[in-house]
């Protein structure tokens, strides 16, 4: 393969305790730590490993988001991506629009493989990878926990509800990374310095000929229903009798 493209989304860090704004207009993101979506980080790690095995020549990290998403792309470059492209917009980009935008970049760059996370941990939509594969009219391997390449094909192991499923797809293809695909590397300080000199190109949606077409209006954001704190029991006998009281044993 010559090129692998990886999508990196800037999201609220997974360790941040999410709080809903009192007026229901969204969640609080001001002053909150932002990171690469963990599944996208796994996607990038896989691309880097493929390149390090000598099976690909170049890894391009791309993001769609605000100017600040450059931080996540710089982290991606420090991990080892060769260059980065930011499609800069302050608007909310729904998965279908994200897929359309990524398709424009694919048309420019002609990668043989695109890897994205199986879902972003902010909106939890889990749509972009499969939508991109559909628009590109290419195969998809979603929820991937293992992948190998030979003869222009990828053999993909997918984590499915009933176990592990293998499929074979022709390249080019879109893969979406699941948790157990790999464990991303830590970025070292010299790599962060080096990453500052790697190319990071910024383009606009206009440059790519994309007009956003939002389809879902978020009317309101609520905190989830809270479960009531229950009772504490002292020992196993207490546990058994509490369960019997509820008719559960």
């Amino acid at each position, binding site marked *: 393969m010559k090129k692998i493209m990886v999508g990196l989304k800037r999201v609220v860090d997974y360790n941040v305790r999410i709080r809903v704004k009192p007026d229901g207009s969204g969640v609080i993101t001001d002053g909150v730590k932002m990171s690469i979506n963990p599944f996208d980080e796994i996607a990038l790690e896989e691309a880097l490993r493929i390149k390090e095995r000598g099976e690909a020549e170049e890894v391009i990290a791309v993001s769609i988001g605000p100017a600040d998403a450059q931080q996540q792309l710089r982290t991606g470059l420090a991990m080892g991506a060769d260059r980065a492209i930011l499609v800069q917009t302050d608007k909310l980009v729904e998965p279908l629009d994200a897929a359309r935008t990524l398709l424009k970049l694919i048309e420019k760059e002609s990668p043989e493989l695109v890897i994205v996370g199986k879902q972003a941990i902010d909106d939890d939509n889990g749509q972009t990878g*499969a939508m991109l594969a559909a628009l590109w009219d290419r195969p998809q391997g979603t929820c991937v926990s293992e992948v190998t390449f030979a003869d222009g094909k990828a053999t993909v192991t997918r984590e499915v509800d009933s176990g592990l499923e293998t499929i074979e797809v022709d390249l080019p293809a879109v893969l979406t990374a699941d948790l157990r695909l790999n464990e991303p590397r830590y970025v070292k300080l010299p790599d962060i310095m080096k990453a500052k000199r790697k190319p990071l190109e910024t383009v606009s949606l206009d440059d790519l000929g994309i007009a956003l077409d939002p389809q879902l209006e978020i009317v309101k954001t609520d905190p989830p229903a809270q479960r009531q704190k229950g009772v504490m029991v002292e020992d196993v006998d207490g546990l058994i009798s509490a369960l019997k009281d509820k008719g559960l044993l």
Partner: protein
Amino acid sequence: MGRILIIAEHDGSTLNSSTSKCVSCAAGIENDGIDIVVFATSGAGIASQAAGLAGVAKVLHVDNEANANPLAAVIAPQVVAIAEPYSHILGPSTTFGKDLMPRVAALLGVGQVSDIMAVLGPYTFQRPVYAGEAIVTVEASADRKLVGTVRSASYKAAATGGSAAVEATSVDANLPTHSRYGELKAAASDRPDLQTASRVICGGRALGSKENFEMVFKLADKIGAAVGATRAAVDAGYVSNETQVGQTGKIIAPELYIAFGISGAIQHVTGIKDAGTIVAVNKDAEAPIFEIADIGLVADLFAVIPELESKLG
């Protein structure tokens, strides 16, 4: 109002209960009829199971050798080929539906509502974001087809006793050959299915080893429970991937859920919030799991599990 189409999930012979949950969700959307479509090699048997779900008007089955296994790239164009009369197209939010439905939506040029947990109107839905730490109400345009996945844990199975018409049909769609099914490695198990079991016992990393996790299986067998695990326990190799419960694993809603050595990270808790009764056993009294547990016991799981097992015998 329009008709609703549900894509059936099955294993080649048996309809998955997630399809029934989709029917329950669809019943909450004003409609002119709920239809189900089965893609299989010979789907008449599965279709007749679907026809028994109350509230279903018609069940279609599209028989084709290419449908022997669920490949999203192969099924999606067939869904699109029969989509025309429908206002809503729903699938389950299982790994089957998560793979297929976005591909269908993109081919139709529409967005998707993932993980529908409540229907507030024909085009207005609630869904969880941020691992269930926030719930958004989203409104889609009535001018376009609505594609969505249904969060199974939010719905009860539809009643049975229906008698929908079953119809074999064929579709005119160009099916790709770029994707080929290999095999499914499923852990053979006589235990109840995690997603439908009324009792579930879950273990965390505190179990410490694959051997120790056997304690959980033994107790589960004693009370007829399914076994689940946290991501950490799966990552550590104590149990296989299909047991993972949480944001990126299975979302479950058993009547009884018992957590052993689980701290209660939000990524796990989002998968169990719909359980009827949550029991937590953890030696750390400060573990966040106790904030949501109906019954809590601060104790060492290595003492509790054997004692429970002997006293329940």
